[in-house]
């Protein structure tokens, strides 16, 4: 039995803590210790993007981070995108609904977390920029067109909200 480490962190504005083995990935911590199963595990080596969350304000793969590393951090998962206790969808989520940006939904949390983070930095992306952005998120179902449109529409919605 290897050493356990005590960690405490904030996830979607709420405080969580746990005693974890060092080798427990952040993704597994979120899913198994925190019951936040919105974050999905696909490849476990950083290429598929399904596990993407926000760590201290930036999109990151939770499969290549260990929970111990997130001690003291602020994490946002897909469960934290919507506001008003889930009654008000994030503009990215609204856009996905508008443009059928998902089918099975497996890649969706990663897609949305990636796009949401990016739009905070670049509120007016081109289609090419969105395509380049989501190259790190693999979708088996949709063929990406709906996702790209959703990304552009989300940017539009966010710009409308700001003005």
């Amino acid at each position, binding site marked *: 039995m290897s*050493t356990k480490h005590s960690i405490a962190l904030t996830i979607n504005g709420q405080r969580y803590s746990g005693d974890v083995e*060092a080798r427990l*990935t952040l993704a597994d911590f979120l899913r198994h210790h925190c019951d936040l199963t919105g974050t999905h595990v696909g490849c*476990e080596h*950083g290429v598929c*993007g399904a596990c993407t969350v926000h*760590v201290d304000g930036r999109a990151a793969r939770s499969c*290549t981070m260990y929970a111990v590393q997130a001690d003291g951090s602020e994490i946002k998962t897909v469960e934290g995108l919507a506001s008003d206790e889930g009654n008000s969808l994030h503009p990215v989520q609204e856009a996905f609904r508008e443009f059928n940006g998902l089918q099975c939904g497996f890649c969706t949390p990663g897609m949305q977390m990636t796009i949401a983070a*990016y739009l905070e930095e670049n509120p007016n992306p081109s289609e090419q920029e969105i395509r380049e952005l989501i190259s790190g998120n693999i979708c088996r179902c949709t063929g990406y067109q709906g996702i790209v449109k959703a990304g552009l529409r989300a940017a539009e919605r966010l710009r409308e909200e700001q003005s």
Partner: protein
Amino acid sequence: MKPTAFEYHRPSSLNEALEMLSSLDDAKLLAGGQSLGPMLNFRYVMPENVIDINRVPEIKGIHFESNGAVRIGAMTRQYEIEKDEQFNQQLPIFREALRWVGHYATRNRGTLGGSLTHLDPAAELPGLCALLDAELVIKSQNNERTVSIHDWAVSFMQANIEENELLSEIIIHPWTVSHGFSFLEMSRRHGDFAIAGVACLLSLDDKDCISKTAVSLIGVANGAVRLKNAESLLLGERFSMDLAESAAQVIDGLDAPADAHHSGDFRKRTAKTLFKRALKQAYDNAIEGRTR
């Protein structure tokens, strides 16, 4: 797909990190985790100890020295380099190449030092460091040394670094003479490991001849390669596609191992095409820079 158990250590200072490196057996440094994480998860590597250097402050950040040198802490995240405006003014090729380094999310964690120590043959950052004759500062508990990037890669994915040493910073002297740059990469999907990639810097004299140039190649050989032979062919010449074509032939002389994805020949052919295009682009960029 889960790592084997390891002891986790998180030093909060450089001295502490170096002390741990000296005293712990079978230890690996955890920087951005974008290369080590997958290897741990795959159980390619099964170290007894992992030393997490993410909270070591001394090796982070970009510093601009008065002598013109740019010092980049090894733990500087790739996105930080991408976004830094002052950095981009002096070394715009980085922002262009970083578009191709992994993906948006991996660049938020991945570091310059990690990429340089991991030395994947298709990695872009070692290629850029070779292009700019970077110097690497290596520290251990009782020693410090500086290694030229050209002496850094000892062999396939093996850097000139001992088990008790840590890469602490990278020193780059940006070109001060007006120059054009280009970075071109070919991969099956954007963000995949490069089939081949070419980085180029090029300066023209007042007769429009190439007065200074540097070209490096990634993805083809066992690591990044400076194409010095090609550079010699280009110096003093007027740019033309014919010149680019003949300089590109040096790539044929490289040892290009095949792998599960592509043959060595395919990589070389791709590299030659990219070389010509990159040279043209750097040339156009240099002309544009002059007329601005």
